[in-house]
């Protein structure tokens, strides 16, 4: 049981087969909405009152404005002012700037959070101070939980960089432009009530309508929905660490040696320093070999945009936009396509894009000798990252974890991960600065690089682990408490692991 709901433990990849019908919001009718299409109300408090927000309800927000978001706290504080208690806050991810949600939990406005937590919110959870259990889901898992009714959203509050009075909303224009609004898509369809909050009201029609006004109850205009400097970075920076550059280059060389980098291929890499550098190395190799990708998956940055503009990929299928070049590109280039967790990651769809991607480059905090990986907790058990799309991406043809072999003396390759976030059978390659470990299950990849006779440092994962432990010493295992404070869900909604209170 988690927060009063029965749970199914993880049964294995592809083993759990849910039955029944998907959830749906209550029936609504045109007659209850103004013929003029004007759904504006004075402020968030009014909107939440009209939504019928009550004690114990579920309120949702989204992280497309990232650390620059002001709307989530605005909504939660408005809820506090109208005297509502014990809400379940259901953000698609939380950010350090939302630290004051702790205050709202202390005051009883928020009962608990189901969504990624890190920084101060993560500590609050792992110190066992939250009243309910944290539930960590992937982006796809969040969509799945909404679709199968595990989470019913009473009120969704969606921040919109541009919107019209009807509630059509777009993320790619306006002073607070962020690119995409895909993380709010499920909420807009399945929540009972949907509020759009904008600081850039456009005359009807607001196009493109990434969020359809036909799903929206109320529109609220505010001075500012976010801090533009923290929404997207002006420029994304490639790592300058020689060790990390080496990792990035090894990843690119591996894709070439394994024959994955070929005409019409596809890949996904995030916006971390190693991932960005990987894209630059891969780009040089694609040019040298005359290879072109069919599509690349975002989070987009200027580096992916350059691939598109230089004709090295036909499309960017984007999930979120990390810098200004990405925002400009998605606003202007029809080959830069907005996607959502529904198209890309959702478990209850009839397929999704993640398994169509040839190679994905991800990070992790730990990986064990069986290739199981942890992305949510630090080795000492503290919550460090959300799952994001990480679990969903594991379904790619070749999943590569690119990591330094140790951080601050702490080895990254361990006997057993602190928190299982990704099963080892889904993880194919671990690339560190000291060598590349291929999962023994992937005999095809081992064979491919052997045939190429590549000079790549391919090594058993145990070898790399032993070398690092020789340098760093074998770390003691930190003592974790025996009280659960959060669970990690697998993409199908089963419980993969538990996060324990940190002593």
């Amino acid at each position, binding site marked *: 049981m988690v927060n009063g709901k029965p749970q199914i433990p993880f049964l294995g990849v592809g083993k759990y087969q849910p039955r029944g019908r998907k959830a749906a919001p209550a029936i609504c009718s045109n007659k209850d909405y103004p013929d003029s299409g004007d759904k504006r109300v004075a402020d968030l408090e009014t909107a939440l009152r009209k939504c019928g927000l009550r004690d114990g309800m579920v309120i949702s927000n989204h992280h497309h404005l990232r650390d620059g978001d002001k709307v989530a706290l605005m909504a939660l504080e408005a809820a506090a002012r109208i005297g509502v208690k014990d809400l379940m806050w259901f953000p698609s991810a939380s950010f350090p700037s939302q630290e004051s949600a702790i205050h709202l939990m202390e005051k009883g406005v928020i009962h608990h959070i189901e969504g990624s937590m890190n920084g101060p919110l993560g500590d609050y959870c792992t110190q066992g101070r939250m009243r309910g259990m944290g539930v960590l889901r992937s982006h796809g898992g969040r969509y799945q939980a909404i679709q199968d009714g595990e989470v019913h959203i009473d009120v969704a509050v969606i921040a919109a960089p541009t919107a019209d009075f009807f509630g059509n909303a777009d993320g790619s224009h306006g002073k607070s432009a962020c690119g995409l609004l895909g993380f709010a898509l499920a909420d807009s369809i399945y929540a009972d009530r949907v509020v759009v909050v904008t600081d850039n009201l456009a005359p009807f029609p607001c196009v493109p309508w990434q969020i359809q006004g036909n799903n929206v109850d109320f529109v609220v205009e505010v001075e500012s929905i976010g801090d533009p400097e923290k929404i997207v970075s002006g420029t994304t920076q490639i790592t300058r660490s*020689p*060790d990390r*550059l*080496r990792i990035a280059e090894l990843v690119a060389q591996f894709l070439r040696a394994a024959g994955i980098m070929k005409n019409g291929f596809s890949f996904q890499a995030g916006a971390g320093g190693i991932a960005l550098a990987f894209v630059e190395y891969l780009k040089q190799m694609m040019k040298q070999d005359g290879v072109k990708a069919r599509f690349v998956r975002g989070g987009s940055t200027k580096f992916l945009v350059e691939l598109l503009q230089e004709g090295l990929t036909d499309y960017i299928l984007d999930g979120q936009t990390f810098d200004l070049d990405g925002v400009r590109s998605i606003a202007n280039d029809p080959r830069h396509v907005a996607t959502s967790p529904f198209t890309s990651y959702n478990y209850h769809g009839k397929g999704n894009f993640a398994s169509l991607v040839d190679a994905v480059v991800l990070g992790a905090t730990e990986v064990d000798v069986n290739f199981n990986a942890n992305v949510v907790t630090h*080795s*000492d058990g503290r919550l460090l990252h959300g799952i994001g799309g990480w679990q969903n991406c594991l379904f790619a043809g070749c999943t590569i974890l690119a990591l330094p072999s140790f*951080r*601050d*003396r*702490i080895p990254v390759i361990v006997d057993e991960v602190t928190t299982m976030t990704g099963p080892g059978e889904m993880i194919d390659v671990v690339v560190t*600065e*000291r060598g590349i470990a291929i999962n023994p299950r992937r005999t095809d990849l081992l064979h491919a690089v052997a045939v190429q006779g590549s000079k790549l440092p391919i090594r058993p994962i145990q070898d790399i682990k032993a070398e690092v432990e020789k*340098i*760093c*010493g074998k*770390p*003691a295992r*930190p003592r974790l408490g025996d009280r659960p404070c959060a669970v990690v869900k697998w993409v199908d909604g089963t419980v993969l692991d538990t996060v324990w209170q940190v002593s």
Partner: protein
Amino acid sequence: MSSAVETTYPRSAEAGHWGTEVRSDVHVAFEARDSGGVEISLESRVAPYYGTAILEQTRGVLSELGVNDARVAIHDEGALPFVIAARIEAAARRAGIALGKRSLPEQHPLPPPSQKDRLRRSRLYLPGSEPKYYINASLHGPDAVILDLEDSVHRGEKDAARILVRNTLRTVDFGSCERMVRINQLPLGLEDLAEVVGESPDLILIPKVEESEQVREVDRMIGEIKTRHGIIRPIWIMPILESALGIENAFAVATASENVAALTIGLEDYTADLGVVKTAEGRESQYARSRVVNAAHAAGVLAIDSVFSDVADMDALRRWAEASRAMGFEGMGCIHPGQIRVIHEAFQPSAVEIEKARNVVAAFEEAQNKGLAVVSLGSKMIDPPVVQRALKLVERAKAMGVTS
């Protein structure tokens, strides 16, 4: 070292670094006491994993240093054990304790001895007080690493850096890299030798050499320490000429000892000595560099170029390195791992050169087999120096891995 006896020491001292910006280092505050035993306090970002190990190591190091009564406060930023040991020893010595004593970490097996004329295309500078760069340095594939005690180490940090470099030579696996140490200008450099030579570095760089006697002095001291430690493997010398006078004495310096394996030039100081601006084209140092190349070849040692200081401009580095090879240099210094590949490519013979050399070598071998004194290739007769050059080029290309 003899002056140490007369120096009065504080009862407490510190060594190392800590703070949010610091990684892989440790700060040790040491306070000598007359009684009360050893008291250790530890703050570490890796405490849950290594707290116990650090405390245990600290007690071990103090005991090796003969310290029975002291208060030691450790702020650790994820330092590796060889760094922790070096910082404790440095702090204790600064407090006037444990003079003449050492705490040597467990030794990593020494790599094979280095050859006098080995490949030295690139040598990566590692500042002597920045331990975070050491562990992964060899992964970037330079021919050599230089643990630097001179310009990259602050005057007040020389004593601590020396101990750190000693521990590094002893414990860090630099793979197939040649392990070089740049000591300080004499006479300070002699104190560096006293600390590091016992750990069998492969080569010592002597900065600001102007007279052959300076090389001989270093050579003598290395020889004495080697004898004392029973070291038989070679420790080569690379003098750095950094002044007009040094350049004038290039040949004498290069021939000062049989242990001189290479001769190099330091352009920052050389251009300063001349009072000219150092440019990316290097016309102002053309003469000096040519002189170094000529003297080195005359002495039968490698001519090695200076460093290229703009780490962002890879195109200019490539132009410099290609010109450098064309002048007769066989390598240059790197101040960033990113420079290594460009330098290796620039110092690598082209496919056409290798092909020509291979043909010459084949013709030479054929002549040898037939017992002919004259080597000919097609209609051309090949002179012995051409054969020698071709043999050397093929051998170098093999060492670089560009041909088999």
